[in-house]
C-alpha cells in the first residue's frame, strides 16, 4: 500500500541556522515510529513542519498523496493529522469533560465559523464521542475535575485524548512521557498505544527513553544535527555505532536491554 505520509528533502533554516536538512521519510499507514535524537537535533522542528506550525524552507510534505507543504495548522488538522505536546496543552480552567467536548465538537463541526455558532458544545453525539475517548484512555474518573488540578500523567493522557477524539489518521506525539516518573512511563505508554492501535492510527512519537522506543516502536528514525542519520527497525537502528555514539551514547546488548 502507498505511504500515508511522504516527506521529500525537507529543509528548514532560521537565518543562518539550519534546523533541518534533506529529510526524506516515507511512512506506511498504521505503522508506529519512534523518533530519537539529542535535544536540538531537529525532532520537534520536523513535527512542527508536518503540522504546519513551521513552513519548510525547501522540500515537500505529502499526506495521503496530497501536498500539504505550508498549509495552515488548522487545515492540516482537519485533513487528519493531529498532535500532542511535550508540555500538555489543555484548557486549564475547564473540566476534563469540557476539554474533550470542545475537541470533539470542533472535530464534528461543519461550515466554518458560523457553523461554530450553530453547533452546540454538548450535542449528544459530541458528548458520546468525548465519553468514549475518555474511557479509551481510562481517565473517565476525572470527568468533572478542572484540568489545572490534574496529576501530570492524566494531563498527558487528556492532551493525547484531545488529539485523538477527532479520529485522525496520523498522530504525532511530542515526548509523550516527558515529565512522567519512570514507574508510570510504561503503563502510560501502553494505555496510549493500545488506544491508538484500536483506532488504527499511524503514530510518530518522539522519545528519549530507548527502552520505551525499543518496546513500542516498529521503526525508528534517528535525528542528528537536523537530519536523519538512521532509519530502520529498533534493533538495527539502536545497534548502529553512529547512533550509539551520537544519540544513545551507550552500547546496548539487545533492544529493551539495560540502559543508563
Amino acid at each position, binding site marked *: 500500500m502507498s505511504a500515508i505520509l511522504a516527506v521529500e528533502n525537507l529543509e528548514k533554516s532560521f537565518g543562518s541556522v539550519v534546523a533541518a536538512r534533506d529529510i526524506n521519510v516515507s511512512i506506511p499507514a498504521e505503522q508506529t515510529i519512534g523518533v530519537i535524537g539529542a535535544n536540538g537535533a531537529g525532532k520537534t522542528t520536523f513535527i512542527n513542519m508536518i503540522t504546519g506550525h513551521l513552513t519548510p524552507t525547501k522540500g515537500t510534505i505529502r499526506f495521503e498523496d496530497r501536498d500539504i507543504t505550508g498549509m495552515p495548522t488548522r487545515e492540516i488538522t482537519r485533513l487528519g493529522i493531529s498532535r500532542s505536546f511535550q508540555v500538555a496543552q489543555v484548557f*486549564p480552567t475547564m473540566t476534563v469533560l469540557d476539554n474533550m467536548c470542545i475537541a470533539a465538537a470542533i472535530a464534528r463541526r461543519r461550515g466554518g465559523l458560523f457553523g461554530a455558532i450553530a453547533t452546540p458544545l454538548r450535542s449528544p453525539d459530541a458528548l458520546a464521542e468525548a465519553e468514549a475517548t475518555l474511557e479509551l484512555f481510562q481517565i473517565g474518573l476525572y470527568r468533572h475535575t478542572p484540568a489545572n488540578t490534574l496529576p501530570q500523567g492524566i494531563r498527558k493522557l487528556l492532551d493525547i485524548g484531545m488529539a485523538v477524539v477527532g479520529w485522525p489518521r496520523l498522530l504525532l506525539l511530542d515526548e509523550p512521557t516527558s515529565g512522567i516518573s519512570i514507574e508510570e512511563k510504561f503503563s502510560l505508554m501502553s494505555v496510549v498505544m493500545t488506544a491508538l492501535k484500536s483506532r488504527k492510527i499511524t503514530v510518530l512519537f518522539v522519545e528519549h527513553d530507548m527502552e520505551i522506543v525499543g518496546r513500542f516502536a516498529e521503526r525508528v528514525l534517528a535525528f542528528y544535527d537536523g537530519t536523519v542519520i538512521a532509519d530502520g527497525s529498533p534493533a538495527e537502528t539502536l545497534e548502529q555505532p553512529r547512533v550509539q555514539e551520537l544519540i544513545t551514547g551507550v552500547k546496548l546488548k539487545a533492544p529493551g536491554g539495560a540502559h543508563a
Partner: protein
Amino acid sequence: MAARAHIVGALMFLIAAAAAPALPDWIVSLATIAFANALVVLGLIVMWRAGLVSFGQALYYCIGAYTVALVARRTGFTDAIGLIVLGGVAAGLVAALVGFLLARYREIFFAMLSLALSMILYGVLVKSESLGSTDGFSVSPPTFLGYAPHGEALGRSLYWLTLGVGAVAAMFVGGYFRSLAGSLATAIRDNEIRVEFLGVSVTGIVHLKVIVSGVLGGLGGALAALAIGHVDPNMAYWTTSGSFVFVTILAGAGSVAAAFVGSLCFEALRSLAADVMPDLWQMTLGTALLLTILFLPEGLGSVVTRLRRRGGAKPGTLT
C-alpha cells in the same frame, strides 16, 4: 439547567415589563437608557470571556446612534424597530471591517487599538459641522409600526421596545455562550495554540466576537439615541467606553442577566450621586468601582451565583 435560566429570565422580563405603568416616568426613562447601555455591556461580556476588553466600544454605540439619527433625519423613516435594526447592522458592518485589524491583537493592545479607532470616529464627527459638530443634533420621535405615541406613552413604548430587544439579545447571547463558538472563548483565553491545533482559526473566532459585540453595541446606541432624543460625538469619546467597561466590571462576566441589573444599578447610582452630592459624583462612582473590584471580583452576577449555589443549583447555570 438552561431551561431554568430561561424561566428566571422570562420572569424578570415580565415583571420589568409589567412594572412600567406603575412606575414614575423618570424611572422608566432612566431604566430605558440603562437597558440600552446593558446591550453594549453584553457585547463587552462576549469579548471579556475570551480575555479581551475593548476601551473603544463607544465606536459601535456611536455608529448605531448616528445611523438612527441620520436615517430618521434624511429619509424621514421613523419606525423604531426598523431604525434599530439599521443601527445594529451598520455597527455590525463597521465591526466586521475593523475586526480584520483588531482580531490580531490581544490584551492591552486590543484595548488600546479599539480606543484609537473610536477616537478617530470622534474626531471625524467633531469635524463634520453639517452634523452639528460637538452639539450633535436631535432625533425625531419614533413611530411603532404606524403607532405614533407622545409624552409618557412614547416613554413607555420605548421602554418596552428596549426590554424586548434586550430579551431577544439576552436569549441569543445565552445560546451563543452554550454554543461551540461561545465556549471557545474560554478555550482561547486558556490556550490559543491548542485551539489552532484542534483545527479552529483563533483569529476567526475573535473576529466573530468583535462582530457580535459590535452589533450589540450598535443596537444599544440605536435605542439610546431614541431614548435620549439627541446624538452627539461624545457618544464615541473614550470616557463613554470607560463607563461601559465600568458597568461590565460591576456586572461581571458571569451571566447575561447581570449585564442588565448591573447597568440599572450604575444608572441609579450615578443619578442618585448627582442628586445627593452634585459636585462629588465622580468620587462616588470611583469609590463604587474600587469597592466592586476589591470585594466583588466576579461582579454582581457572582452574588447571585453564590446564593444559587447555596440554593443547591449548579454554578453558572444562568450563562
